[in-house]
């Protein structure tokens, strides 16, 4: 059959693209789109509940189901509008009676299984964020090094990282949005655009909490850049604050008007173990988490001090290194895999532009994430089994049973999870040791050192 001339033209054009980014982007997109067939049904069920609540006119907090600050909820609102205006999905999910016993396992899973199309609808915006996040890392490395090879490497280290692929493609968590806006704010700050940097910083912190710890380092950077001109420093800080406040007010406007602003911060109390029925263990975990984050705040103040004292030539690099270290410190309190997403672009920058030795941390994080994501593969495959029949549901149930068989807690599921988590954690520890190993050695040998960020 003769080919259409348009098809030939398109093929020729596609074949003429030689930019190295194109190969990485195409490979990454293919992997992302394939992985998105899987889903952590526990979370996708919640996203479907949130969309239902929006559809029913209850906003984000009128009915039970959404426990975060509003940014991701608004993206789900956009997804809902798209579904209503352009698609005809039918049921978003079905309750699979045969799999209800999965819920009795104590793992975070559900037998309410969202459809493959629904899952793609919620994950495609996150995939776009992944692509932008990788591109921003590319831009950052290029800005700093003027080397397209290094910049392309950074792009690949982000876009092909299993932490990113799994967080978006399987869990469907918005950590990549937070990381993306965090990178926007850093780049725009380096480019001397404080208003936009402030806006993006607010978006980042209001998507997922971690970037808020970059407040002091970024402030120190502003004042250090204007050293000797306090008025200019104050002015830039005020402009950045104006951008951040403008965005925050706009984001929270519905909650302010409806008087349920506190619901937006429920995730803080949920994780603090302060419920009247929290047992001692839950309270201990909650208080330890608070203590850990107080220590991170302290570390961020120290980082800010170091950044402020940096010389003009090394100031940008100090900010980026300090930011990476602060994000890594946030994760010293054992993280869920998706939390690590905020570290990946800064680590990729550091590997490509500063110190390739940190590649071993990337590998450890990648391997750890891969293992953790495969732990619950039997439940991740549920949408494919239930809505397409490509996988047999009975086989999945057997898979689930096998993974949960064993004496007490010694199941394949638990053991694999611990192995994956330990590898992930060692990736963070190795990163900090790589960055500060030499200083630590001096300290241990009793010599003076100027540990800096």
């Amino acid at each position, binding site marked *: 059959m003769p080919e259409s001339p348009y098809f030939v033209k398109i093929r020729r054009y596609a074949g003429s693209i030689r930019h190295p980014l194109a190969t990485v982007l195409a490979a990454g997109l293919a992997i992302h789109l394939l992985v998105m067939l899987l889903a952590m049904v526990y979370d996708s069920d919640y996203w479907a509940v949130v*969309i*239902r609540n929006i*559809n*029913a*006119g*209850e*906003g*984000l907090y009128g*009915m*039970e*189901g959404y426990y975060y600050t*509003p*940014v991701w*909820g*608004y993206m*789900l*609102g*956009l997804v*809902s*509008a798209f*579904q*209503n*205006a352009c*698609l*005809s999905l*039918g*049921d*978003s*999910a*079905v*309750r699979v009676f*045969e*799999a*209800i*016993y999965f*819920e*009795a*396992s*104590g793992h975070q899973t559900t*037998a*309410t299984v969202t459809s493959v199309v629904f899952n793609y609808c919620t994950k495609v915006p996150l995939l776009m964020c992944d692509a*932008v996040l990788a591109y*921003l890392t590319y*831009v950052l490395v290029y*800005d700093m090094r003027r080397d397209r090879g290094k910049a392309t490497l950074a792009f690949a280290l982000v876009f092909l990282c299993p932490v990113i692929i799994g967080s978006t493609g399987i869990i469907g968590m918005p950590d990549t949005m937070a990381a993306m806006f965090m990178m*926007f704010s850093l*780049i*725009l700050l380096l*480019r*001397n*655009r404080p208003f*936009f940097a402030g*806006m*993006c910083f607010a978006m980042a912190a209001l998507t997922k909490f971690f970037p808020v710890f970059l407040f002091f380092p970024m402030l120190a950077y502003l004042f250090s850049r204007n050293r000797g001109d306090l008025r200019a420093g104050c002015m830039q800080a005020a402009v950045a604050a104006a951008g951040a406040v403008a*965005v925050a007010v*706009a*984001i929270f406007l*519905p909650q302010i008007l409806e008087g349920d602003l506190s619901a937006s911060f429920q995730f803080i109390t949920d994780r603090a173990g302060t419920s*009247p*029925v929290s047992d001692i263990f839950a309270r201990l975990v909650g208080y330890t988490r608070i203590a850990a984050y107080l220590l991170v705040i302290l570390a961020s103040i120290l980082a800010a001090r170091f950044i402020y004292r940096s010389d003009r030539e090394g100031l940008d690099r100090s900010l980026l290194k300090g930011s990476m270290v602060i994000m890594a410190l946030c994760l010293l309190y054992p993280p869920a895999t998706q939390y690590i997403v905020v570290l990946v672009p800064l680590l990729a920058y550091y590997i490509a532009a500063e110190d390739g030795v940190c590649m071993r941390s990337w590998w450890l994080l990648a391997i750890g994430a891969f293992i953790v994501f495969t732990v619950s593969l039997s439940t991740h495959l549920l949408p494919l089994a239930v809505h397409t029949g490509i996988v047999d549901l009975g086989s999945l149930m057997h898979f689930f049973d096998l993974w949960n068989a064993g004496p007490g807690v010694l199941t394949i599921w638990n053991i694999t999870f611990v192995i994956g988590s330990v590898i992930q954690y060692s990736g963070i520890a190795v990163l900090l040791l790589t960055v500060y190993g030499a200083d630590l050695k001096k300290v241990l040998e009793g010599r003076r050192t100027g540990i800096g960020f």
Partner: protein
Amino acid sequence: MSSKIDGIAVLAVVLIAAVFAGEYFTYGHDTDRSASVSWDTGSVSYSVDSSGSDEYRAVLFDNGGYTPVDTLYIYADGTYDRYYSQACELSDGAEPLYMEGDYYVEQVRESLKIRGFDDVCIIDGEGLEDLLRTTMPSPSGIGVMVISYAVPGSVYSGGPDCLLVNWINNGGSLYWLSSEIGRFYTDGLGLHRAEGDCTAYFFGTSVPVDCSDGDSLSYITGKTVNTGFTEALCLKNSTTEFGIDISGLSGIQLGFGEEGYASISMVSVGAGMICVFAGGFDIDQLDDIGQVIASKLTCGSTFIELQRGKVTRDSVGGTFSFSASDPYLFIYTGGVYANFGACFHA
């Protein structure tokens, strides 16, 4: 480093604008949904409209002459947190499940509201006593929901001859959630445990309650009861903790169950009804409560037929033929994530 127009800044603004667009669609834009029916002798035609993309279900059933609840009073227990630990200590088997104060009460109201059931009032202990006294002569069509492990001693104090039980026998409907029915009551002296078989006070006979001292997860089951209603209403809560076994009683069970216990049990008591929702306070239970009450199910309901389909920015309809004497038609959209509902009676 900075140019006159910074592409990165432009991209950032575009993405922030996308979030704000989502904000508009979350709070500033409504999807219109409605349903209407036309009853005829032995048949009913319905129409469902949606300006969005939905799956609808039309559930036809017969209430067999039982009057459904059209006004619901939710008892908000102001002493819930104060006595919760004590109630746990005094419980023989499973401890009452915990919920967050007035929040869950509001959630029940919202769950009903989106399904078209608007006549909901929240009352305290005094309000409950007042309601029971004033409506005692004819409580038919009125429901009282107890979202607590205890009721005020002024309406029930651990015996069969009390305001609450008499009110039910006169035709009122009681909805009980997530604890052993009738085990505790409160008064000015504090929390009291009702001794003896408290189910007999309510049902007139001993009724087993699924509250052995097991892990909450052990009550989960995937076995459906009354599969017609369970599938038609997309019921989700699959735990039987504090559910009851209604063998030998007049009533129906819905949802999921095992060994006689079910996640939802509706029992005829005198001229009234008691409905027990098992399991903890969660989204699945909230949705089930919304579905059961908004659809106007009673202890005498019999499933007839389900019709379903897509309604996408359009209006669709259908017709049922039936021979029921007391038919009801509940139409809702969203499936397991119901976002609209309307109930019609011939």
